[in-house]
């Protein structure tokens, strides 16, 4: 019993580090990490997952050789290498720390759903126009419309809150390269939808955030107005209780899911919505229109022609 006690006292910290490493590597290689972090941070998680076993080995290897002063023994939480010498004993504090470090992480990882419920979405508040969006570029980086270059835009009242569109136009996608250049929008700019990916039916695949930014930019609205598009998102019942419309929601994150905000576009359904479950994934094909809301801001509405259940995309979160 004493031997087991000593072995545990010496190896428990290293076991914790190995377990965390296994968890991080599992999330990284299974792709589940994609739902939690933007791509910039993911390699850091991989590096941490690879480094932790090295640190754990160092811990095991070093623990025997370093004699620790009593003052160090009392340092912070009693869980590190301190006291891991040959006469070390497993203390209640170590077991408690072990449980704190592993139980919540293990329990949270055991929850197989990697997305928020409709309750959390509502708690965070739906963002239905660009004013509520973080001032950053969209994931699809639509081309920069320029009010000064667009004669039709200057004729209308200038918007007081211009959306944060990238200064440089995005490169056309592979799908869009076959599209006719410079559609009939103006000689010096290109229809924004030309830059979007196309569905097998040839429809532009639009993200919710693209319509939010377009609604707020009068020079971009003609690019989408009346056009048939394909969208994907999660079903959220309309808060007014209407059975003929709903919100198509996506989460938009800046760094991690904890800071994600739900962005939504209103979808007018062609028929009844009975049978739809909250937060189920849908593919919507329909025509885009822009309407002035009660506060005078333009919002995008999609008149759906077809609504199909679909599987979640590889990236549940937009960023």
């Amino acid at each position: 019993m004493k031997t087991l006690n000593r072995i545990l006292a010496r190896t428990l910290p290293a076991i914790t580090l190995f377990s965390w490493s296994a968890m991080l590597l599992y999330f990284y290689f299974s792709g589940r990490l994609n739902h939690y972090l933007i791509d910039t941070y993911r390699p850091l998680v991989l590096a941490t997952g690879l480094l932790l076993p090295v640190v754990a080995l160092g811990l095991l290897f070093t623990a025997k050789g370093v004699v620790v002063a009593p003052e160090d023994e009392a340092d912070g939480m009693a869980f590190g290498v301190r006291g891991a010498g040959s006469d070390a004993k497993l203390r209640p504090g170590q077991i408690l720390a072990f449980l704190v470090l592993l139980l919540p992480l293990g329990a949270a990882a055991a929850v197989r759903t990697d997305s928020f419920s409709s309750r959390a979405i509502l708690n965070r508040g739906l963002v239905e126009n660009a004013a509520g969006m973080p001032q950053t570029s969209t994931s699809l980086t639509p081309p920069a419309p320029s009010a000064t270059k667009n004669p039709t835009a200057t004729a209308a009242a200038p918007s007081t809150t211009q959306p944060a569109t990238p200064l440089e136009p995005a490169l056309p996608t592979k799908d869009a390269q076959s599209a006719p250049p410079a559609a009939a929008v103006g000689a010096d700019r290109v229809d924004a939808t030309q830059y979007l990916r196309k569905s097998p039916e040839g429809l532009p695949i639009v993200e919710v955030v693209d319509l939010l930014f377009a609604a707020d930019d009068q020079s971009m609205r003609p690019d989408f107005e009346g056009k048939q598009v394909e969208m994907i998102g999660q079903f959220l019942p309309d808060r007014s209780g209407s059975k003929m419309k709903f919100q198509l929601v996506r989460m938009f994150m800046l760094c991690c899911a904890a800071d994600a905000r739900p962005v939504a576009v209103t979808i007018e359904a062609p028929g009844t919505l009975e049978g739809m479950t909250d937060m189920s994934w849908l593919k919507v094909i329909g025509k885009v229109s822009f309407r002035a809301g009660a506060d005078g801001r333009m919002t995008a509405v999609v008149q759906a022609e077809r609504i199909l259940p679909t599987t979640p995309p590889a990236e549940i979160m937009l960023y």
Partner: protein
Amino acid sequence: MARFSFDPQDFSVSFLSILFEGLPFLLLGALVSGLIEAFVPARWMTRFLPRSPLLAMLMSGLLGLIFPMCECGVVPVIRRLIRKGLPASCAVTYMLSAPVISPVVLLSTYAAFNQQQPLRMMLFRAGLVYLVAVAVGLIVSRLRAEQFLDPKVVAQLAGGRRKNTFQLSRAPLPEALPSTNPAVADSGNAEAAQTLGEIERELEPTFLGRLRLALSRGAADFLDVAIFVVIGAALTAVFNTSVPRESIMPLAQNPWLATGAMMGLSFSLALCSTSDAFIAATFTTFPFGAKLAFLTLGAMLDVKLIFLYRLVFRKRFIALLALGLVVVIGLVCVRLSAFLG
């Protein structure tokens, strides 16, 4: 809408994402802390400090520009720095300022407020954090170590009682030499710094030995800090998903309520300082001062940090620090709202 609702699924997503985002930086901080312990001579840092406490504090507040650290990673680092003889007042100044006074955070603040006078927000954020951090450092420099440092940390500072960073020898400790630098003497670390320096020169452990020590100390620090990060992340995840944010929106019209609400939000959300500006910028109806309060307080104090600070400081000091930060930042930001909207 329910005022408070808890769902394990939402908690899980939020909790894991906070951990996944923070762990790499935590490990980095812990490894840096281990390297400091093993490779940095005890008195080395104090040589670069000005003799005047004020100048030392002013310099410490800018260290984040050269050694950027996030709020999670900086705590184990300063704990080691204090034990290595850096005046605790300088360490506190660095701890409070580094999460904001860093190139990445300043640029992200500028980018986040892209169309809301970004330069103004960036400069005010950096300026307020810097002034508050220096002020706290100056106050701390007048305190005895026992008054604000955790007794366990103090025990390791007392020269003569602690054997050394490297416990490969049981050689008797030499007597401590008196310090001539007031900036060093202020926290009572001078004795320990002198003593440790002498011992380290005597022992001269091998490079491999130091590396092993760095790894083991880094691992120990990582585990120590991770416990508090897990607890803090769990509490943050509950706030993050269970409390409706719309409930604070009506407060935007009153500068006092708006500032208080935004400070409460930053405390409970415990966002990383590299991304918090993007969240603050979306509260467009809130006055400038309220958003500044969100960005300033959140980098210095939140649910997670309260737990982390316990590794270094006494509970009473943390409570007073929290109170001081809330009052000073709150008053300054409300006043600024009156002038700057």
